[in-house]
């Protein structure tokens, strides 16, 4: 394999991280919480697509839509039951631990329902590989890259130009003031969780199409890495999450190819630490001046 194909695969992997990171960054931006259960929503989404396609025989695209709706509802319910009561808790750690509890809960439900054995996921993109300049690129990679770009553009438009999107910006800036201006804060936060979780389903399906092993713990490592990507790009920033995700994917794939597949993760995390030390708010983050 040449450098170029490693690079393209890295961008493909990075696009998956980017889609997950977009969900992370929106939820963090608005609810100011680390949603540790996000990675497990990805796993649930992938299982739903798997069941719909393999057991029920539904074609790929409708299966994906079913999974998106399921995860959307799941995300909203999780927020309502587990996170909302703790929104004004005395310690921010309370909601973090609850998110971890939700993460364990989803993993164990999946373990009970689907069993511990890994399932082999069938690719949702059934197109032949494309040849560019003599290099074969799998169509899954191309679709993933395209999907992440489209999602980022749509989200940017949504947040900047539409009324609910502007409400999101307002709530993330100052929740109290937004409430006083007549914005439905609870509704806006629910909407954010809904979008983030539906994106998680897309990410799950695309990720398992490229790396077709699905078990109850599939989501946790990509979840952490996507969070790293979101922090890398500057948390709360949509283009930041996108670029952070893609950079992360490229770094991971190139270090797997040229340095060592065993310590690729260590390199990824080391790069994160270096970036945060140089730019504590991430690549695209706003540096908030602290006032006394």
């Amino acid at each position: 394999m040449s450098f170029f194909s490693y690079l393209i695969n890295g961008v493909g992997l990075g696009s998956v991280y980017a889609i997950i990171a977009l969900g992370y960054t929106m939820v963090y931006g608005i609810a100011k919480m680390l949603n540790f259960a996000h990675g497990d929503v990805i796993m649930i989404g992938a299982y739903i697509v798997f069941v719909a396609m393999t057991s029920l025989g539904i074609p790929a695209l409708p299966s994906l839509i079913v999974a998106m709706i399921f995860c959307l509802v799941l995300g909203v319910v999780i927020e309502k039951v587990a996170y909302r009561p703790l929104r004004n808790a005395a310690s921010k750690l309370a909601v973090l631990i609850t998110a971890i509890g939700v993460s364990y809960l989803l993993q164990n439900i999946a373990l009970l329902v689907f069993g511990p054995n890994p399932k082999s996921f069938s690719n949702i993109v059934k197109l032949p590989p494309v040849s560019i300049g003599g290099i074969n690129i799998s169509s899954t990679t191309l679709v993933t890259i395209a999907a992440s770009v489209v999602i980022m553009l749509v989200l940017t438009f949504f947040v900047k130009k539409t009324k609910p999107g502007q409400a999101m910006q307002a709530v993330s800036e100052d929740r109290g003031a937004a409430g006083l201006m007549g914005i439905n804060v609870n509704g806006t936060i629910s909407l954010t969780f809904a979008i983030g979780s539906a994106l998680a389903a897309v990410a799950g399906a695309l990720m398992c199409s490229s790396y077709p092993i699905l078990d109850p713990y599939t989501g946790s490592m990509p979840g952490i890495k996507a969070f790293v990507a979101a922090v890398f790009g500057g948390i709360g920033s949509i283009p930041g999450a996108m670029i952070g995700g893609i950079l992360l994917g490229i770094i991971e794939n190139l270090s797997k190819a040229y340095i060592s597949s065993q310590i690729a993760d260590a390199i990824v995390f080391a790069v994160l630490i270096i970036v945060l030390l140089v730019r504590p708010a991430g690549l695209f983050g706003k540096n908030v001046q602290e006032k006394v």
Partner: protein
Amino acid sequence: MGKLKNSMRKITKKNLMTYICLAIGFVIIQSCSAGGLLTFQIKGLLVPVCIYIICAVALNLVVGISGELSLGHAGFLCLGAYGAAIFSKITNGLIPDPIRFLLALIIGAAVGALFGFLIGIPVLRLNGDYLAIVTLAFCQIIQNLLNVFYIGVDKHGLHVAMQDPTKLELEEGGQVIVKGAQGITGTPKDANFIIGIILVFITLFIVLNLIDSRTGRAIMAIRDNRIAAESIGIDVTKHKLLAFTISAGLVGMAGALYSHNLATLTVAKFDYNTSILILVFVVLGGIGNIRGSIIATVILYVLPELLRGLQTYRMLIYAIVLIVIMLFSWAPGAIAFRQRIMERLKNRGKGVQ
């Protein structure tokens, strides 16, 4: 002045109570054990409980007293365990066992504190969730690197290699100590419950005295308002680093106990779930409440082990209990509800009089 003396006495009394409760617990368990009342399964839990109590108390120093969220304490546990195990494997038979184990514990603590210090210097400049994610990243890096880490010993001394055990180039008669992902096997099993309890007492003594010292009050002042603390001349970096290093050192010591309790030591046991397990003990016991950490650790560590009969439902129940407890003890709505109930009970008590 009189008031101050009084309050000092109150703190001393409170700490004494903690020590006494712990001592009573130890005597009860030890006599049950001597009387043959404990099953083999429970006996196996005693040392791990001590290990996790030390970890929880140490993490509480960072999370509760210093107010920084660390998700990397499993990394320090791992480093302490490795450092101590490597030392014990090399010197086994050369030094009398009790002295060797004592040195191993000190080395575990030193390794933990050293890495805590080195990691703390850059990392403590960040705060809040960023600090959490960076400590998590450090934990992953440590795990990842130790997975491909090999150490061998022959008569020329130590040989270190990454990724490839054949690069150790050991002479004949040489012995591989650390075998990458397979970890370290055959560390002498020196740990027992009494040593565990002694280490718990040492940890408590260090942490409680630190909290009640001038330094401890400075650390808490930084937690409550960093800018105000800085403005009255408290060195923020120094104090944060001190708390973090002490915490990492204590966890490293617990790691030494860990590696001398099990025959096999692998890195896989120290992933971020372990960090989170310790954090759960701290948060459920009460952030900043040292005694709470001990109680929460005992209950939450022993409970899932006793539920092993339920097998697959075990972790499911654990997850649900975790969420429910968090909601019940932290949600403002639940707190108001509890207060209403308490008030009603109090009023009823008055009505009867």
